């Protein structure tokens, strides 16, 4: 138990993760500053949308990081509960919609499969998915694809039920994720094949899930590539 707790703390309390978050926060702040200047130069009203969505994404990153810290540090055990994956994905899609609109990314919600409830902490799972989604929404247009779609979906894999974000971007692979985990303590751009930033959102999601005993993995869904949380079905509830 002591070792598990130490591992949790190491992941979220790492100074390098804090550095990555600081680097990641530069991006929305630079966008806000430049959008504000542009609106003064040519009365461009689209700057207001940039400022609103960028502010929201920066605040969410901070909130999610703080949640990760609390989950790791609080003495009491986190509440595990019966969680509907579909409703968490729906809420995450709502939270990500303004940023997706700003980045011209089509968000698709694919919750067609019949999945019963899973064992998780709803707030933490939601925070992890929003954190992951924010990073991917900003990263995907940089891949020069004609279509920029991000699908929020659940599917069954050999690990269990996976809830995550999927796109046509092949670079969303386990190689990229593993390399990122190895490099995030030493590199300014650990997910170099995925993101031009520090990828802090992905690592915050990773840490939050780790704190509640879950795992972030790369997986394929239909013909899409993505990253998602492995969840454990609540079998007792499925019998009801």
């Amino acid at each position, binding site marked *: 138990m002591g070792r598990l707790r130490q591992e949790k703390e190491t992941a979220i309390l790492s100074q390098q993760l804090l550095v990555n978050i600081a680097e990641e926060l530069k991006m929305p702040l*630079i966008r806000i500053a*430049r959008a504000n200047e542009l609106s003064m130069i040519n009365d461009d009203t689209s700057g207001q949308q940039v400022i609103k969505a960028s502010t929201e994404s920066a605040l969410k990153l901070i909130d999610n990081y703080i949640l990760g810290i609390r989950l790791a540090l609080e003495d009491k055990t986190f509440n595990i509960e019966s969680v509907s994956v579909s409703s968490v994905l729906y809420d995450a899609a709502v939270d990500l919609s303004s940023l997706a609109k700003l980045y011209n990314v089509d968000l698709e919600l694919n919750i067609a499969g019949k999945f019963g409830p899973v064992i998780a902490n709803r707030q933490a799972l939601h925070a992890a998915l929003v954190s992951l989604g924010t990073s991917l929404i900003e990263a995907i247009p940089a*891949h*020069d694809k004609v279509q920029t779609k991000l699908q929020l979906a659940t599917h069954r894999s050999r690990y269990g039920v996976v809830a995550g974000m999927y796109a046509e971007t092949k*670079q969303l692979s386990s190689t990229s994720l593993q390399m990122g985990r190895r490099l995030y303590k030493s590199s300014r751009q650990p997910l*170099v*094949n*995925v993101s*031009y930033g520090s990828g802090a959102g992905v690592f915050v999601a990773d840490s939050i899930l780790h704190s509640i005993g879950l795992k972030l993995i790369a997986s394929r869904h239909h013909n899409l590539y993505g990253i998602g949380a492995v969840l454990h079905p609540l079998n007792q509830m499925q019998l009801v």
Partner: protein
Amino acid sequence: MDILIIEPDKVLSDIYLKTLKCEGYNARIARSAQSALDAADHIKPDLVILELQLVEHSGIEFLYEFRSYAEWSNVPILIYTSVPPTEFSDSWQILKNEIKISKYLCKTDTDLKRLLGEIKGLIGRPSEKAHR
């Protein structure tokens, strides 16, 4: 006057595009090193504005590739990046003399007004004809 902007962030690249067009420059966006080389082939840029942190191939890799073509060996390159210049303190001479960087600006302390000033300093103002 044609400017090639290599910026992976969609929102920032849109802002630069609008700013430069407003000033009368022709500008084109590329989000990756490969698409930047393709774009350079088409527009024959008078200036390249480059963010160093790109997906897959870095801005530095782009610079070496770009400079390897004789036709682009003298095109001014303005680095406009979130990477602080202190990270290149050991290799500054290489950037300046070998890759021939014209200017290194950090996004955190360079606003659009200063960016425009630097662009005008490097390639001049667009002609009235282009402005119309």
